[in-house]
């Protein structure tokens, strides 16, 4: 075997090794650029232009709007992930409200519905007028009150 052939083999092998790594990254680029739909159904295509992330299912809330309190006007787009509300820094909606606990309440999707759950807060979470004592489904447009903050789910 001549030196030159061996050198070429060596460089080619390294190039192929790196090509493998790049191909592997290509397979998981969905992690970086959002989910890919399997064999794109037409309905998803039609629904895509205005809301790429939210599930375009009928009658399902798409955003959470703060309608009262210091954060009034804040809008959080709902996705699959649960939303935590409280004074803790890592909460999805961070409140600066003396009447709220650090981990006050949690909203999570289940079977197409959003459920509110009180996380053992001091002053309680209210859905409309009633205190939330166990995980309760949240209808559209019904106010949830946490301390001075009022939020509701909208389409």
């Amino acid at each position, binding site marked *: *075997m001549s030196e030159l*052939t*061996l*050198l070429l*083999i*060596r*460089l080619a*092998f*390294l190039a*192929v*090794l*790196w090509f*493998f*790594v790049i*191909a*592997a*990254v290509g*397979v*998981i680029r969905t*992690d970086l650029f959002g*989910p*890919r*739909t*399997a064999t794109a*159904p037409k*309905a*998803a295509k039609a*629904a895509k232009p205005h809301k790429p992330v939210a*599930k*375009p*299912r*009928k*009658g399902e809330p798409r955003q959470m709007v703060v309608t009262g309190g210091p954060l009034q006007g804040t809008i959080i787009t709902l996705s699959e992930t649960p939303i935590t509300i409280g004074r803790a820094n*890592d909460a999805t909606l961070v409140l600066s409200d003396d009447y709220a606990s650090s981990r006050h309440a949690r909203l999570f999707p289940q*079977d*197409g519905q959003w459920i509110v759950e009180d996380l053992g807060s001091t002053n309680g979470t209210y859905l409309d007028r009633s205190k939330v004592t166990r995980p309760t489904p949240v209808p559209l447009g019904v106010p949830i009150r946490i301390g001075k903050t009022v939020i509701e789910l909208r389409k």
Partner: protein
Amino acid sequence: MAVTTSGSAVPMPAKRRGAQLAMLAFAVAIVMGAYASVGLAVDGRIPAGMLTYGLGLGGLVLAAYLVLAKFAPWADPLILPLVTLVNGIGLVMIYRIETGGSKLASASTQLLWTGVGIVMFSVTLIVLRDHRALQRMTYTAGFAGLLLLISPLIPGLGQTLNGARIWISLGFANLQPSEFAKLALVVFFAGYLVAKRDVLALAGRRLLFIDLPRARDLGPVLITWAVSLGVLVLQRDLGSSLLLFGTFIAMLYIATQRTSWVLIGILLFVGGAMLAGLLFDHVAARFEVYLNPEDPELFYKFGGSAQLMEGLFAMGTGGVLGTGLGQGHPQLIPLSFSDFIFAATGEELGLTGLMALLLVYALIVERGLRTSLAARDPFSKLLAGGLSFILAWQVFIIVGGVTNLIPLTGLVTPFMSQGGSALLANWILIALLVRMSDSARRPPPQAIQDEGMTQVFQR
């Protein structure tokens, strides 16, 4: 009605089975190319073993792929190809070291163990249909882990090889039970932390800028610390000790998101290691080698820095592009087929090849952490996070040791080093990750009808 019609519009994660098969074929092709390259460089012709090893590995991973497609169809498409590549490169390096004249290296044994590993991978996937069954065995797993960990100390069963008492003899083969203990212990940590995370995360007081836990909640940390120091002192196994304690601290951090646990863990481990360094010769010797590997006196001493320095020389010889497969001198490094396979690979593939390999490891870990993020229950999150971390941590400890970034501890490079126990345990670990990624990526069951109190779900 509304659900069934609009159900098809919900974005579904793709299975990506085609991509998986293509990547698998690619990985096997790279491994066969590597064999051919070794043969061309050593004898000037394509080795006769290339087809045996290549097709053997190809057949094995094809079987693994079929089992995965049947029993975990939604599993992550990348984990299996990536592991195949690392395992294959390890096989090639062992083959290369064997042709270089090492008596202890044996590529055919390693291929056999790879086969057994893939069988264990398949058996795990077939038997364990729902990994949450493991949560019910939390304390059983913890007990089994401890038992496995101390089993080499039992007289008559345990064996001392190369100064570490970490082997048990089963008559036909020697087994390294700590490799399996680490799996059982990660399962135990995950189950235990799910049950206790609240008190560990919330109770305590704030001092300056960190939240300190209460003194009585320090129990589990202190127990794990004591166990890992026991491993260090009684079995002279620095690697497992660091691996075990580091994993516990990382999982504690994942469970509680509390930085103070990490600080407490680091302080405890550094304190314990320094104490052990003062009290025990074998630990002190490692520190000495770490600090002055170039010292000629240490270099020529038995058990001194010769191995480490030969590894560093090898990587230095390799440089950026390497000497090429089959053209280095791996026989100069003691134990180049097991602990120092990374240095031997570094000589032949160079920095470029090592970086690619490290990236492949990083991608495996990334897929594991991604599974952990996507998992739906806290036990799966912790288990997937813990298993990925232990893999990453193990690579860090051995690569850091070989490159003299941290004191060298005897640990195997996952999937590359020669050794049956580690290969088996790591294939089971990968099977667990695949099982969890399957359940994390599987779309939730869709309701068939939408009315009334009773709902029928399609699985």
